[in-house]
């Protein structure tokens, strides 16, 4: 007996076959011992399941029973916590903290640029044109800066030049 025959016999037990197929199945049951045994087993199983299936009866109507379940589900659902009322101070703080940080950054940048642009901060630059031998001396006590140049060179003077040299 093939697997298809077994499926047809099961359909026959369940009453799902048409007239010619049902007659064919009956003929197979009558001729084949194994088919006969299978159908007997299927009928026993079907009878056992049908006789022992528990039947629950509700004390109330079906609609009332399910509405109770629905209410319990809704009661157990997590609710969103209510947002506390935002005070004016909180709003100010939210605005002022980043604004203060930005302002502090701006002040820092302005001071940095100012210090970079202003040579008075100690960054004195010097370019001795045509005189790489120039040197600078600073007397902090008297507030005097001396820049000594090798200009003019010795051979720049003529014999009759006045002693002021420059």
């Amino acid at each position, binding site marked *: 007996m093939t697997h298809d025959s077994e499926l047809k016999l099961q359909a026959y037990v369940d009453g799902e076959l048409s007239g010619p197929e049902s007659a064919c199945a009956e003929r197979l049951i009558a001729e084949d011992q194994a088919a006969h045994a299978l159908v007997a087993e299927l009928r026993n199983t079907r009878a056992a399941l049908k006789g022992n299936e528990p039947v629950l009866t509700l004390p109330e109507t079906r609609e009332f029973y399910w509405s109770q379940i629905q209410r319990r589900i809704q009661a157990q659902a997590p609710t969103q916590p209510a947002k506390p009322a935002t005070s004016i101070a909180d709003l100010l703080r939210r605005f002022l903290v980043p604004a203060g940080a930005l302002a502090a950054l701006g002040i820092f940048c302005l001071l940095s640029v100012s210090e970079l642009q202003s040579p008075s901060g100690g960054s004195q630059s010097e370019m001795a044109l045509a005189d790489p031998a120039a040197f600078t001396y600073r*007397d902090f006590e008297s*507030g005097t800066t001396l820049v000594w140049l090798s200009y003019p060179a010795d051979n720049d003077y003529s014999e009759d030049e006045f002693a002021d*040299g420059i």
Partner: protein
Amino acid sequence: MTTRSCAIILRAPLLIALLLAATSSRSFAADPALKLEALLVWGTNDAASPDPKHKPVEPAIRKKLQELPLKWNNYFEVSRKGIDVPAASSKKISLSEKCDVEVKNLGASTVEVSLFGRGSQVLKRNQSLPPGETLVLAGKAPNETAWLVVIKRVQ
């Protein structure tokens, strides 16, 4: 939030605005004109200058020069010129036939000094010149003497 913290938060913008105003005024306020004085000085160990027009430098400048590591004992004033430099502008003066000085007002008591010898620029330097500050540019001259250009802030 306490009342005290609220007050601090509310005062913060005022403090920030004051800081910004102070910074801006420091950075962008118009600087006044600089009044400077430039002197051409001859340094020597001779007691007197061969040129009767030369006179000894004033005591304050003499003191400053003597505190510098220079070997000369006497300093004679050859010429003197006042320089009024408006903000963000420059002015050029002649201290002698061969010596010119150009001063540019960079603001914040800072100047750019250019020294010209015989028409050629020999030095360009940025120098802070607050009141009381003096810049001395110097070099050697014949017969073991020296020339000096003294630039000082008058106002």
